């Protein structure tokens, strides 16, 4: 099979430019790159059809080198239509990006960045579980360390040592080093570091 050198050279140049352009961050350049790639591929398909200028006749006895294969051109036609639709759609997207963000660049995924910056410590999974040794009603702690029971029922009181105390103060009445105090401290300490 003879191959047209001009077609081959042009095809190579189109591929090179196309690959260079789709590596850019600018959307318009990416689109131009995709168009060049599609056209380079069309030339590649055309090259498989044989040398240009021969008639597309076919019979069992014809020598393959003496006629042109018409099928690749049908394939190219389909591929042109498809790349036309995709190009139109890309232009629409690029225009929409411009309207929304006033920029022509590919934007980063925010959630991706957020996950990447999340510390490996997770309050829910990794925090020390407080050991409840007392049967007195202790303040309920939310996962973020906030005292949610205080907001719900601020007047919760406890009888301790002949006095009436607020519930959250009752825990502090116990000696330092007792189970409750240590547990609450352990629970709070890493959170201060882990919270964003």
């Amino acid at each position, binding site marked *: 099979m003879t191959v047209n050198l001009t077609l081959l050279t042009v095809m190579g140049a189109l591929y090179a430019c196309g690959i260079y352009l*789709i590596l850019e961050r600018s*959307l318009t350049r*990416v689109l131009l790159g*995709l168009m060049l*790639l*599609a056209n380079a*591929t069309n030339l*590649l*398909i055309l*090259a*498989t059809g044989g040398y240009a200028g021969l008639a597309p006749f076919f019979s069992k006895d014809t020598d393959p080198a003496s006629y042109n*294969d018409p*099928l*690749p051109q049908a*394939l190219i036609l*389909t*591929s042109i239509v*498809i790349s036309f*639709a*995709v190009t139109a*759609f*890309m232009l629409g*997207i690029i225009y*929409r*990006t411009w309207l*929304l*963000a006033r920029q022509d660049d*590919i*934007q980063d*995924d*925010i*959630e*991706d960045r957020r*996950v990447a910056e*999340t510390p490996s410590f997770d309050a*829910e*999974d990794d925090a020390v579980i407080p050991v409840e040794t007392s049967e007195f009603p202790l303040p*309920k702690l*939310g*996962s*973020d360390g906030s005292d*949610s029971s205080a907001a719900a029922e601020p007047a919760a009181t406890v009888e301790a040592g002949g006095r009436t105390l607020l519930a959250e103060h009752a825990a502090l009445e116990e000696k330092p080093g007792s189970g409750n105090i240590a547990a609450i401290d352990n629970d709070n300490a890493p959170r201060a570091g882990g919270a964003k």
Partner: protein
Amino acid sequence: MNLASLAPLAVVLPILGAALTFVLIRHSRAQRAVSIALLSLTLLLECLLLASVWNGGTAAVNIGGWVPPWGIVLVVDQFSSLMLVVSSAVSLAVLVYATGQGMADGDQDAPVSIFHPTYLILVAGVSNAFLSGDLFNLYVGFEILLTASYVLMTLGGTGPRIRAGVTYVVVSVVSSVLFLIAIAMVYGATGTINMADLAIKLSELDPGTKTLLHVMLLVAFGIKAAVFPLSFWLPDSYPTAPAPVTAVFAGLLTKVGVYAMVRTETLLFPGDSLNTPLMVVALLTMIVGILGALAQSDIKRLLSFTLVSHIGYMVFGLAMSSVAGLAAAVFYVAHHITIQTSLFLVTGLIERRGGSSSVDRLAGLAKLSPLLALLFFVPAMNLAGIPPFSGFLGKLGLMQAGIGLGTPLAYALVIGGVLTSLLTLLAVARVWNRAFWRKAEDAEHPDPVLLAVPAPEGGATAVRLLPWTMVGSTLGLVVLGVALTVFAGPLFQVADQSAAAMLDRSSYIQAVLGDGTPVPAVALGGGGR
């Protein structure tokens, strides 16, 4: 035999539906009725097709009466008709879900009534890709479904969707260009693009050319199937689309890529020349994917990573080139389409009920909506491969095939598969513990919906949050997933037969090219060792 000649209708009916719904674009009620009716009809037809080849056999339909090596041919065999039925069932459920969502939100006059025509075109593209017996027609099928998916992905044109859409479109177009280059080179090397004809002519090529064509096709399909080094586009682009769209993409689009890889490996390039690289890639896909899932706090992103990870199982089954492995892969594809879609649909419901899809902000859903908890729990355990669900059966089949193969790499993959299964369990258990199990007060910035007192049964609020059409279609898919477990016996039998037929190739080639066609012997021992 006569039934198979109805195969083109599987493509034509959805396209007809798309045209009709496009005409009815201003009448949303008629649009809904037409699209659901035509999709149900398609599903019925595909069930008939599956029934006609249930006990084996392959049928080919020549489009336009052109004789095969020149004309386009559609091929119905067990694998393709099984894929058709599962994919249509799933897309019908998603369509009902999307319709319910649209009706609940009262978007009768919204500009997104473009959804129905585009969705039906997507279904037509998927059917065309499954049925195609011609490499260029496969490309056209891919393009139909991709172009429809571009529109669905950017539905509404909001900032995040456009951002995700750009990544998705560019990656998909590059993979399509690669596929087209591969087709051009295949045509240049053999002078045909009919897959049955190629199966004969490719075996006459010298090994170097053959490997080049093989690798190019696998890379093009690998991007679409999201196999490890080519998978990074998927978790970035899927989660931002509307819930039903993400669900149908997750279920169908990557599986079309896997289907094309299966056809490439079995029909076009049989033998074990690329089995070792495929196995390594499968292992990396499983492990890297699931590690990514563990780091996520958004349920949709987490599920997207498990999707990538579980593609590894299918590639593993494919890479073994044994009947047992391929059969397990076929079963696993059917299982995974159903389960992954139902999980994404449930996530859509969670987002409606809990106001967020981030596990940090969700809590106490098991108490608020026990039905929702059940709908999540069953497919989640199924995905993780807890016995007796179909996920366990599929993985068990793969492990047995891997141990049967007995090479060190196969053992590594078996261990990797078990590890991935355990890590999947960890990932979904984390979602379960946070979104469903803990108290609402423990969540970070919980949505007011979670803390509010539940409305009485049948109250106006409950109906708006969880419309019965959406819950019903999700329930239908979950039940289908369980049915795959109950009827796993006959299904595995069909999977076994189809795997044997695909590895043998003679029924496919002779159905397309005529009974007397000699089938070239498969050259084994190329590079498998």
